[in-house]
């Protein structure tokens, strides 16, 4: 199931909320959440829910064992088991075909392929359970002794399919005792509706243009068309991904969980280093804590470490060479920035830094979007005029005209401008009149957004789910 669907919004969520808040006992509430979460996952993927439960059971058991044998060699062995099991799951379901095809190509072997699609969310939950075992081993958290509580952590539908990557230690407290109150709930609603708007209003609108221009229209691309398509894709992926994170954070608050922020207006960054501190923060943190630092961080073989981390980051996004290249591309940019570019950027006017970051990220999206490297190459050549292509086509003129207002609004919405205006000016202004006016304004905005979102979902416009490959 996905958040941006009518069944989730108007059946699953209200029923879940009603049941959850109709009981008082913590254990019953936990079970309600577990059952709804498993149903949420099983709704579209009935078979693969077993994989999720398997992964949870394995790490629950290993976590206890790691703790029981603390300081002895067995502890290390159990940790190794967890690493092997989780990475094998990921390796088999997500990367097998990729490795097999490359292996077959390079070594003329005949490794068989499997035909099933990637189980949704596997990249997220394997990382979550893995990080738990590592944290228990490191003594950062106490192992969970109650199975249902651990299953709750792994299966929580809020972040199950599209992140953020929530670590056990971040919500360990809240798994035991959660505080829910009207204030948190209202904040959660606000956040969730914000995320929903990002996904349904912004991401889907941009996505339908991307689909027309870069997918269906690929055979007659033009220079402006490519750039326009990529700008729209930049909007699509940002609003989609950060929208999902907002919805997860919001849902968490409604049920008493606090998840860390995952996006922080990445497109306003002034260096690629900064961009990656603002984009998919939980993933960057994961690789930093579990790969970069264990490898020696910036103390030993820093260049190798950065290289490894970014290759893996790329690969995490998909089992394809284009993602590896995409990761390495950012690795190289970050290395350049660390050695000299950051110093230069700081001295240049801000505008240059912004153009550099947006341009750099946009070019990155070419690698990300076109899984077919041949297509990607054509796109690069077209963008910079190395091959013969029309500057612009009538279709692109019309597309731009038909989306001009959207581009303006989406650009503003990619910056903190609206949020700042609201928090700094509108809200204090309303509060000064009367508290109730401020509360009511919020409620009216939420209601209006819900009407628009519902209308767009019902009128069945373009509403894809981008996370099938993650």
């Amino acid at each position, binding site marked *: 199931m996905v958040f941006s669907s009518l*069944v989730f919004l108007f059946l699953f969520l209200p029923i879940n909320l009603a049941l959850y808040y109709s009981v008082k006992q913590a254990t019953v509430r936990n079970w309600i959440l577990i059952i709804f979460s498993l149903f949420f996952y099983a709704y579209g993927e009935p078979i693969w829910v077993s994989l999720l439960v398997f992964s949870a059971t394995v790490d629950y058991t290993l976590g206890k064992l790691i703790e029981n044998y603390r300081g002895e060699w067995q502890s290390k062995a159990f940790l190794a088991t967890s690493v092997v099991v989780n990475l094998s799951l990921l390796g088999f379901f997500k990367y097998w075909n990729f490795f097999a095809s490359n292996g077959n190509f390079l070594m003329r072997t005949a490794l068989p392929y499997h035909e099933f699609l990637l189980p949704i969310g596997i990249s997220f939950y394997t990382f979550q359970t893995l990080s738990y075992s590592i944290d228990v081993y490191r003594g950062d958290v106490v192992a969970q002794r109650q199975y249902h509580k651990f299953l709750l952590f792994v299966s929580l539908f809020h972040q199950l399919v599209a992140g953020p990557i929530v670590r056990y230690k971040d919500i360990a407290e809240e798994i035991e005792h959660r505080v829910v109150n009207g204030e948190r709930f209202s904040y959660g609603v606000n956040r969730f509706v914000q995320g929903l708007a990002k996904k349904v209003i912004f991401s889907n609108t941009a996505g339908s243009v991307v689909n027309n221009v870069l997918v269906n229209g690929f055979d007659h691309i033009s220079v402006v068309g490519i750039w326009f398509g990529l700008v729209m894709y930049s909007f699509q992926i940002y609003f989609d991904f950060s929208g999902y994170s907002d919805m997860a954070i919001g849902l968490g608050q409604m049920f008493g969980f606090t998840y860390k922020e995952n996006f922080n207006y990445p497109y306003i960054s002034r260096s690629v280093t900064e961009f990656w501190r603002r984009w998919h923060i939980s993933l960057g943190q994961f690789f930093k804590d579990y790969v970069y630092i264990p490898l020696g961080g910036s103390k030993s073989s820093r260049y190798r470490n950065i290289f490894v981390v970014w290759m893996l980051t790329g690969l995490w996004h998909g089992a394809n060479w284009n993602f590896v290249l995409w990761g390495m591309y950012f690795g190289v940019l970050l290395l350049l920035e660390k050695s000299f570019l950051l110093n230069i950027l700081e001295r240049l006017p801000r505008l240059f830094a912004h153009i550099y970051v947006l341009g750099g990220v946009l070019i990155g999206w070419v690698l990300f979007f076109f899984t077919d490297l041949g297509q990607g190459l054509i796109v690069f050549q077209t963008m910079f005029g190395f091959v013969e292509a029309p500057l612009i086509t009538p279709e692109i003129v019309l597309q731009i005209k038909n*989306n001009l207002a959207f581009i303006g609004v989406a650009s503003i919405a990619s910056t903190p401008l609206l949020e700042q205006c609201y928090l700094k000016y509108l809200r204090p202004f309303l509060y000064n009149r009367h508290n109730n006016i401020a509360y009511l304004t919020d409620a009216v905005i939420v209601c209006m957004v819900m009407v628009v979102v519902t209308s767009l979902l019902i009128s069945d416009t373009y509403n894809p789910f981008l996370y099938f490959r993650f």
Partner: protein
Amino acid sequence: MKLKYSTAVVFCLFIGFFGLLSLLNFGNKLITKPEDRQEMTMEKLSKQSLLDGSFATSFESFFSEQFVMRSTFVEFGKEVELLKGIGSGETQLLDHHVLDIVQTTTSVQKIDKKLEEELYSDDGVKETTWGQILIYNSAAMTLNTFSETAAINYADSINRYGEKFPALNIYSMLIPTQVEFIESDHYRSLSVPQSETIAQINTLLSDRIKTVDVLGILHEHRNEYLYYRTDHHWTQRGAYYAYKVFAQALGEEVPAIDDYSMSTAENFLGSLYKVTLNKSIAETPDSIEVFDPFTAHSYKSLQDQIKYNDGQVLLKKWLAEEEKYAVFLGGDQAIVEIQTELKNGRRMLVLKDSFANALVPFLVDIAETIIVVDPRFYDGDIESIVSEYEITDLLFVNYASITRRDVYSPLYNKLLSLE
């Protein structure tokens, strides 16, 4: 009074209220409108459908169909979508799902999931089923695209009929769509020229197949009312000119269009309006002209029952309904039989899509038997029909946009049981 939590309250009421009402609505519809097409498309709850996720998918769309105040939401949604551009947008490009258009005209028929899969997947690869609609000059039209595979396979299928039935006269008629004839070169260039795609298919056809060129005559008369503004089909006036070319190829005389007795229905909002709900085209609804054939005849279906069928190829009761294009043959039918009082020895088989529906009524004046088969719905074979009815002439009628995706060739091949 404290309104601190009004956001939370409003949100919960909103999702709870609409969720509950839609659920109630659900039950209602199931009981009161059993003939509703959605009920038919709803996947049966079974182990299989649960496990492969198809039940979930079909439940999603079912829930959306039954959503309370659905049409209000849809209309509002379409309004909101327009805000993304500048100006009121007299010329626009809109996205559509290919199946949407098919569904609006064949709602008399059921389009089920299985059919959808057959229509739109090829070798397990889901083809692009998104297309674009151009709103131009108060008319909506689908844009044409070109897939070489589709063209080659289409020609190949028809050639197979040529080999299989050496005794038959076989004709291929490809009907260009409205976008081919719009005035503005600029906007016409959004679409792949159908003059080229038709020519390409024609060169791929074997010498056995006679091509019926209707593009020229339609171009000549392009300023007449040949296409609907709100529907993707041609008018019967458009079909008349195509009939003229075809009949002349058969050596038949065709009366002038004004000699036919004609009836008209106003306020027709067709498939493209239903898909786009675009206000600017709704301001000028279509009228639908219907020309009676001169020859007495009978009309019946050989597979499904046809609503409003009183034994004539023009089912005029449909003119009072929303789906007015169904006046021709009662919409897309799997297989129908027309017997006329002519005794000229010409027994025709028409293999076709919905464009042929407006054309077939004219053919009543030049053949003694006409069998019309829509390969999307007919699941028998062709050989037995050819022998049973002693068919002499076989006519393929499709719109030229069959080159957008490879849909018809697998269907035609299946009728031959070659695949």
